[in-house]
């Protein structure tokens, strides 16, 4: 019976220290936002609200990365390139201070030598070039944040 108990305990320990101990989560709030409208001559760039990124990475190995990518803004057949969107982010040094949105993943934040144990927070604000050349319409885009580990 003792042998059986030990075997069970071993299973439990294996389960505890195997992949299950390595966990990463990420969320963003708010999950929807609007770029304000404005006269392109007086407001050449329109800025959305600050988004809060909540993330947590535990367990070995050390290190984590958050990437960001976005779709083009679309309104039916009309598009505004994702590259017309820029971002600013804090806090440094974990977050890249500023960048240009792309349809491919860009590094937004990361740390090579530490966990992000406990829930950590970053703040990102997106801005859009406000051009006369945009066709009238309601445009939407999806911005995706992904946390990865080595």
């Amino acid at each position, binding site marked *: *019976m003792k*042998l*059986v108990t030990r*075997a*069970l305990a*071993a*299973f*439990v320990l*294996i*389960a*505890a220290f*195997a*992949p*299950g*101990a*390595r*966990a*990463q*989560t*990420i*969320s*963003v709030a*708010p*999950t*929807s*936002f*609007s*770029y304000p*409208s404005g*006269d*392109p*001559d007086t407001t050449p760039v*329109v800025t*959305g609200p600050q*988004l809060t*990124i909540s993330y947590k990475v535990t367990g070995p190995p050390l290190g984590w990365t958050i990437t960001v990518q*976005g779709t083009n*803004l679309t*309104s039916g057949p009309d598009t*505004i390139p994702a590259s017309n*969107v820029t971002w600013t982010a804090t806090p440094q040094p974990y977050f890249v201070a500023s960048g240009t949105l792309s349809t491919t993943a860009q590094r937004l934040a990361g740390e090579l030598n530490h966990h992000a144990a406990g829930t950590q927070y970053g703040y990102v604000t*997106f801005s*859009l070039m406000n051009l*006369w*050349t*945009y*066709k*009238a*319409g*309601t*445009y*939407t*885009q*999806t*911005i*995706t*944040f*992904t*946390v*990865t580990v080595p």
Partner: protein
Amino acid sequence: MGAGFKQLTRCGWLLVAVLMAAAADTRAQTVATATGTFVVAAQSKLTILPSTTLTFPNADPDTVPNIQASEGPTAITASVRIPSGQGILTVLAADDLRSGMDTILVSALKWTATGTGFTGGTMSKSVAQTVAAWNTSGSYTGTVTFTLSNSWTYAIGSYGTTLTYTLSTP
């Protein structure tokens, strides 16, 4: 005893499977998305310089059959955001050029134009004349140069009228 061990071993594997499944579920939460919305409303904006007065100086009709405005070309910047169709800039005269009871037909006033979408024309007091038209959103700059047909038949006087520009979007 042997059967009991096997039974418990099965329980152990089951536990491992449950825990790993739970771990896999946690790992799945590695992506977050936000949706951004931008409303581009139909919009137009018109800037005309000089915006107040054009003056046509006196001249000998034989040597200057067409008098150009002293102010030179009128610079026009028209900005439009349109969903489809055309943005159109028109001009309409309030009346013929008048000096008391005397008149010069407003059709004596003509213009030439430069710039994308801009076109020359002849002034009218009854039908708005197209100065420019565009099929796509954008900010467009052009010039319009007015000339007045000069004639010995005009009665002496100081003539004037008012021109109204209208920028319309669908």
